C-alpha cells in the first residue's frame, strides 16, 4: 500500500493536494483497494458548492456504491471527465488521478499526514 508523504488525507480516504490555493482531490490507494474495480464515477458539476465532510459524488465498484466525501468547503472549478469513460484509472493510478478541483476554499476538515493516515488504515 502506498501513502505519498506530500499529500494530506481525510478519514474518509480522500487525498488532497493544494495547488495555488486550489484543492486537488482524489481517493487513496487504500480506498481503491478496498472498493475493488471501480466501474462508475458520479461527478459534481463545475460551479457546485462543496461542504467539508459532505459527499460531492460517488464511486461505484463491483461490490458497492460509496460516497466521495469532500475534505474542503468551496466551489468545484474542474472535474476529471476522463473518469466517466475510464473509471479504472482510479484503480490503476489513484494518486495520479484527481477527481475534482475546488477553489475558494473557506474551510478544511482536520486532515491527516501520510504517516497518521497509514496508521489509521493499518490499525
Amino acid at each position, binding site marked *: 500500500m502506498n501513502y505519498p508523504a506530500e499529500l494530506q488525507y481525510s478519514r474518509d480516504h480522500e487525498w488532497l493536494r493544494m495547488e495555488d490555493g486550489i484543492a486537488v482531490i482524489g481517493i487513496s490507494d487504500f480506498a481503491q483497494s*478496498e472498493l475493488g*474495480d471501480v*466501474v*462508475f464515477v458520479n461527478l459534481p458539476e463545475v460551479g457546485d458548492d462543496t461542504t467539508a465532510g459532505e459527499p460531492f459524488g460517488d464511486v*461505484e465498484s*463491483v*461490490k*458497492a*456504491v460509496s460516497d466521495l466525501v469532500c475534505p474542503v468547503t468551496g466551489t468545484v472549478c474542474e472535474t476529471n471527465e476522463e473518469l466517466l469513460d475510464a*473509471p*479504472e484509472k482510479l484503480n490503476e493510478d489513484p494518486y495520479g488521478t484527481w477527481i475534482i478541483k475546488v477553489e475558494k476554499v473557506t474551510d478544511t476538515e482536520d486532515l491527516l499526514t501520510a504517516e497518521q493516515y497509514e496508521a489509521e488504515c493499518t490499525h
Partner: protein
Amino acid sequence: MKLIFEKSVPGRHCDLLPKCDVEKVELPEGFRRETVPALPELSEVDLARHYTELNHRVHGVNCGFYPLGSCTMKYNPRIDEDMAALPGFTGVHPLAGEKNTAGCREVLDTAAKYLCEITGMESMTFQPAAGAHGEFTGVLLIKQYHAKRGDAKRRKIIVPDSAHGTNPATAAMCGYEVVNIPSAPDGCVDLEALKAVLGEDTAGLMLTNPNTVGLFDENILEITRLVHEAGGLCYYDGANLNAVMGVVRPGDMGFDCIHMNLHKTFATPHGGGGPGACAVGCKAFLKEFLPHSALMDEPGHLQVRAFAGNFLVVVRALAYLLTLGREGIPEAAKNAVLNANYLMRQIQGSFEPAFDRICMHEFVLDLSEYKKETGVSALDVAKSLIDYGMHPPTMYFPMIVHEALMLEPTETESKETLDWAAEIFRELYELGKKDPDFMHNAPHNAQIARPDEVRAARQPVLRWQKG
C-alpha cells in the same frame, strides 16, 4: 444456450390462439406500425424446450439451499399457491362492485387484522407494490404527520450505517436530509451517536430490529424513547421480521409505523422480478394519512397505487397466516433463529462470525483475516459454493463488515441440510489454504464460469439486437 430470437425460423408458429370469432377491425391510419415486429417464430415443442432449458439453468429454493442473507428465501408452501389460484380470486375485476368483491375485501380485512396483531400496529394498507414502495409510503406518513402539525423545521431522518440502502434512498426520495450514524462495535445503534444527532430538526429514525448484522438491538426501548423525546417518529423496516414475528411486536418496541414485505416473510416466491406486495401499518394517530384503495373506502382517500395493490400476494399471505396460526407463526420465527445459530456454530472454527454472540435469523461471516492469509476472498468462496449446488450467501453486505458473507438459512431447512452446508463451508476453508487459485477461478462446473463482472458493469450488453 441460444436466445429465443436466435432459435427463430421464419414461418414457424404455434397454434395457441383460438380462432378469432369477432369481426376484424383495422387500426386507423397513423396508428399502424410500419414494420413487422421482430417476434420469435418457433413451434410449440421448441418453445417448451427453450423454457425448460432456461428452468434447468436457474437455481431457486425448489432446487436447493438458498441462504441469501436478508432476503428470507424460505420455502413457500404449495397450499398458498393453490389459494391464490382460486378462480374467484384470479378472475375478479377491481371494478366488479361491492357485492361481487365482498370475499376479496374479507381477505384484505382479515389479513390486515392478523398483521396488526403480529406487529402491534392499529391500521394497515396493502397498496404499495413492494418493499421500497412501502418504505416510501411509510416515511410519507411521518412527513404528513409533521406537516399537519405545522412543524416545518424537521428536515432530517436518521439512519444507521448498517441499514439497507433503500432506507437512506427512501428518506431522500421523501425530501429529507439523511443523517447516517455509525454503529457501535457490537453492530447495534450507538446511543451516544444517536443522542448527538437528535434535535428539533429530527423528523424520524428508520431502523430494522433485528438489525442488518442479524443482532437484536437490546437498547431498542431506549432508542425509540430518545427519538420520541426529541419529537421524531420511529419507522420499522420489516426486512427482518421473520426473526421475531409472533414473538415480539415492533409496536411494543416503540415504533409508530412499519412496512413488511409480504413476498418475503409471508409465502410469495420472490427474487424473480415480482410481483411483490408490501403491507404498511401504523399506530392510530397516523391512520388518517394511510393510503387506501378508493374502491375499498370512501372516495377522496390517498392512494399510492391503483385499486387494492397486488391482491394475490395478500391472498398467499393470508393462507400462510391461517395455516400456521397463532402457534405456528412464532414457531417459524424461533426455528429461523435456531437454524441460523446452529449453522453459525457449525461453521465457526473455520470461517468466523463477525460478531461472536447469539444471532437472530441471519449471521455475518468476516473473511478479512482469511483473505489476508490466503488471498481467497468472500467472492471466491461464494463462487465456489455454486459448484456444490448451493446458492451463494449475500456478499459484501453490510458494509460495516469487510469481506462479509451473510447467511440466512430460514426456518424451512432441516438439520441434515444445515449439516451438509456447514460441511461444505469447512471444506472450502481448507481448500482455500491449499489451492487458492482453484477458488479464484470457481465455479468450475456451473453453466456459466466466472463472469467478467467489471466488463459487465462497464460495458453492459442490455438487450439482444438483430444481427
